[in-house]
């Protein structure tokens, strides 16, 4: 969509506007349909008994004057606890009805009634807390004691007790057999008394859940605000309403202030939920409600009533309208189900509020059935549904995010594996190439030179010993190279074992004894890092020591000692010593003139170089009693053949 705007701004803006307009019209049409449906539902009158038991003709005595009225009737008075309007009427009771209980049924009145039959009071609605709430349409029913009834006409007097802020109202009265009237009474009680209690209970649960959500997610204050609204609603529903002029009237005043505060909370909730920036003077939303609380605390009845009528009711209406606008904007912007349901609920509440207002102002002729509280509960249902929907969607998003993450991780893993395999393959190829190079060099160093010398000897026609000796040396070297290729698992002893066999075979014709001493049972420490080229260097070094002893020192006995020693830091290291009892020679590699001979000197240089390449220390001691070559193995063999020249 954004790309479209960038590409064709004019067209897109126009198109978007058209789209928005069509959406708005759609939404408005749906809301209008809802309003019509609401009006239709509200015009349905609540259950009423058969009209044959109707008593409508009354004589009203009010403020000293007496005049006939027809029920339903609105009184002018808003407060008349001391001198209530008195309705007097008559009803027919035939003696034949004595077998059946008769009742008086008052479907709707405000605020309280005291009913008397033939001068005896049979009902006082002020004892019923539910009936004392003007915002609930509580009905009343009372069985007339049979002893009170007279054959023929009976007197029915109704005292209408009115306390602010509404004017008095008395709906049509039914007098008839209890069995005919009670079903309607029960239905009305269910609808107007029980249902609000159920809703209030629901509200209480939602308040707890939302409070927990808010406590766990402090960065979402919307939940906290809604929880406050619900808690206030619950308190309002369950606190007893005061009837008499007492200290409770102050409480009463505070209670009527609850509606503006509740609506303020709901408005604040909507602002926060739909991501509006919190207005600078946002707290002013609660100003009318708090003002009403203050008035309720200190003002008198008139002031409370006036302020509620001129401040409280319009505030509720204003907030409902604002709520409807905010939700409508959100519906247009977000196009989500939650906003839409919320919007429909707000429309229903607003319609009901207008209906109640018109009823209070006596603009529409009706039976003063208040439905705002009930529809407010409908809105709570919508909010509950919306929040559940939001929660479920959030869970789905988390799931799909986790799923995507798993897929991505798997892909990355596969890629990594592939690249690792490539890298491993490359490393193996490199290692193989290195090994091949080393093998070629080893073969060339030993075998190559010896074969060349064999060729040279045979071309000179020198038969016999020198050729055989050179060929034997070549074979020995080949055996060493092949032997070093074998995996010995880092145990140099295994390589030395083969070397011992070759050395014995080499010394046997010269009649030189080889003493082999493994001074420690395990021989040498195991070096996992030991590579074939280390083995070759060490074995060649030992071979050279042996060759020196045989050829130059003229020794009769050679002793090889193998041992494991522990250095100062507690680390084991191996030491191999080759000693002979030959002539010995002067060791002065820096001074060639003093060297025993060019060949031997080269041998010594080679030995030092081989030791250095393996990181080993070579110690040469030579004297009249013989020569001692001592090789101190490193704690760790070097990885690379850095010293190779």
């Amino acid at each position, binding site marked *: 969509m954004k790309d479209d705007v960038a590409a064709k701004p004019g067209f897109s803006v126009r198109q978007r506007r058209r789209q928005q307009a069509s959406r708005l019209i759609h939404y408005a049409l749906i809301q209008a349909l809802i309003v019509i449906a609401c009006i239709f539902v509200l015009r349905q009158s609540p259950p009423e008994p058969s009209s044959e038991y109707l008593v409508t003709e009354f004589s009203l005595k009010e403020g000293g004057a007496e005049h006939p009225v027809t029920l339903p009737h609105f009184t002018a008075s808003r407060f008349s606890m001391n001198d209530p309007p008195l309705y007097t009427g008559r009803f027919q009771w035939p003696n034949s009805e004595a077998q059946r209980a008769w009742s008086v049924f008052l479907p709707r009145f405000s605020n309280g009634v005291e009913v008397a039959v033939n001068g005896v009071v049979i009902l006082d609605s002020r004892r019923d807390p539910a009936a004392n709430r003007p915002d609930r349409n509580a009905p009343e029913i009372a069985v007339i004691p049979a002893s009170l009834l007279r054959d023929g006409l009976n007197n029915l007097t109704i005292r209408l007790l009115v306390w602010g802020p509404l004017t008095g109202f008395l709906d049509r009265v039914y007098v008839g057999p209890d069995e005919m009237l009670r079903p309607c009474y029960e239905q009305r009680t269910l609808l107007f008394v029980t249902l609000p209690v159920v809703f209030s209970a629901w509200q209480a649960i939602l308040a707890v859940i939302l409070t927990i959500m808010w406590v766990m997610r402090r960065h979402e204050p919307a939940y906290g605000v809604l929880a406050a609204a619900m808690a206030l609603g619950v308190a309002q529903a369950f606190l007893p309403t005061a009837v008499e002029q007492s200290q409770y009237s102050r409480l009463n005043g505070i209670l009527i202030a609850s509606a503006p505060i509740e609506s303020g909370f709901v408005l604040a909730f909507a602002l926060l939920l739909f991501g509006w920036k919190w207005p600078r003077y946002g707290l002013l939303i609660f100003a009318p409600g708090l003002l009403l609380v203050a008035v309720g605390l200190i003002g008198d009845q008139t002031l409370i009533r006036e302020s509620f009528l001129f401040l409280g009711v319009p505030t509720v209406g204003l907030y409902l309208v604002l709520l409807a606008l905010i939700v409508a904007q959100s519906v247009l912007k977000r196009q989500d189900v939650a906003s839409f349901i919320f919007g429909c609920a707000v429309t229903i509440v607003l319609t009901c509020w207008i209906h109640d207002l018109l009823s209070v102002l006596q603009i529409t002729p009706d039976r003063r059935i208040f439905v705002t509280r009930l529809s407010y509960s409908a809105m709570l249902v919508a909010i509950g549904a919306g929040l559940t929907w939001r929660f479920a969607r959030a869970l789905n998003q988390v799931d799909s995010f986790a799923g995507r993450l798993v897929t991505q991780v798997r892909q990355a893993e596969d890629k990594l594996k592939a690249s690792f395999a490539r890298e491993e393959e490359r490393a193996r190829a490199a290692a193989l190439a290195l090994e091949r190079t080393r093998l070629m060099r080893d073969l060339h160093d030993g075998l190559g030179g010896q074969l060349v010398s064999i060729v040279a000897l045979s071309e000179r026609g020198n038969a016999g010993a020198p050729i055989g000796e050179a060929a034997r040396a070549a074979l020995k070297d080949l*055996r060493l190279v092949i032997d070093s290729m074998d995996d010995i698992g880092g145990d140099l002893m295994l390589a*030395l074992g083969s070397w011992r*066999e070759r050395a014995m075979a080499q010394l046997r014709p010269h009649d030189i004894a080889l003493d*082999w001493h493994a001074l420690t049972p395990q021989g040498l420490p195991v070096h996992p890092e030991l590579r074939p080229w280390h083995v070759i260097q060490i074995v060649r070094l030992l071979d050279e020591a042996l060759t020196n002893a045989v050829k130059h020192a003229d020794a009769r006995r050679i002793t090889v000692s193998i041992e494991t020693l522990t250095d100062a830091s507690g680390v084991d290291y191996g030491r191999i010593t080759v000693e002979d009892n030959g002539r010995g020679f002067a060791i002065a590699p820096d001074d060639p003139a003093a060297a025993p001979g060019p060949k031997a000197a080269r041998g010594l240089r080679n030995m030092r170089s081989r030791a250095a390449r393996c990181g080993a220390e070579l110690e040469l001691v030579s004297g009249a009693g013989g020569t001692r070559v001592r090789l101190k193995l490193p704690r760790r063999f070097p990885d690379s053949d850095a010293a190779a020249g």
Partner: protein
Amino acid sequence: MTLLNDERPSQAITILLVEDDAPTSWRLQDALAKAGFQVTAAATLAEARACLAQSSPRVLLTDLQLPDGHGVDLIRETRERFPDTEIMVISILGDEESVISAITVGATGYLLKDAFPTDIAATVHELVAGHSPISASIARFIVRRTQNNPEPPPGPPLNTAKLTPREIDILWGIAKGFSYAEIAGHLGLSRQTVPGHIKNIYRKLEVHTRGEAVFEALQQGLIRL
């Protein structure tokens, strides 16, 4: 290894030498004849079989790569027909695998082609005396197969299950270059018993007869009667 006295009588010892490379054959014949052995030489598998048809030698000394077949077949046949004949493989360097293959069909020793003449005679003498020679590299080859590797090392399959821990210890000692005396000292054995252990090792590595193969298959549950 101690060298045996060359002067001992060896006239009765007959050797069938099977080697196709003429100079090597001459060299071995010379070395053995000088030590007093009675040597019959054959250059091919067919010739060797012809000789075997006439008489059973005390020792069979054979190369493995022959012009008309493999020495392993000859070893197997000889082992089945003449259980008393000692069989040696003529080995070149670095071919422990071939030696092991020969051992599994019944060879009890090996001889290096380039060994000094005195060593050649001494090795045959020792074998006849009941001492199988074994090199450090062959011992190493066997013990590596006794270790429980997830990936078996390359080479011919070898059943080392029958080897006792003591025999494996002896093989380790040989692989590390210890002498029989040193091994005996480490393991608390008599020096004289070590060659017998080695002979046992050879015998245990051999997959003897068809009957034994059936028995092993039964043991492993491969066939059911």
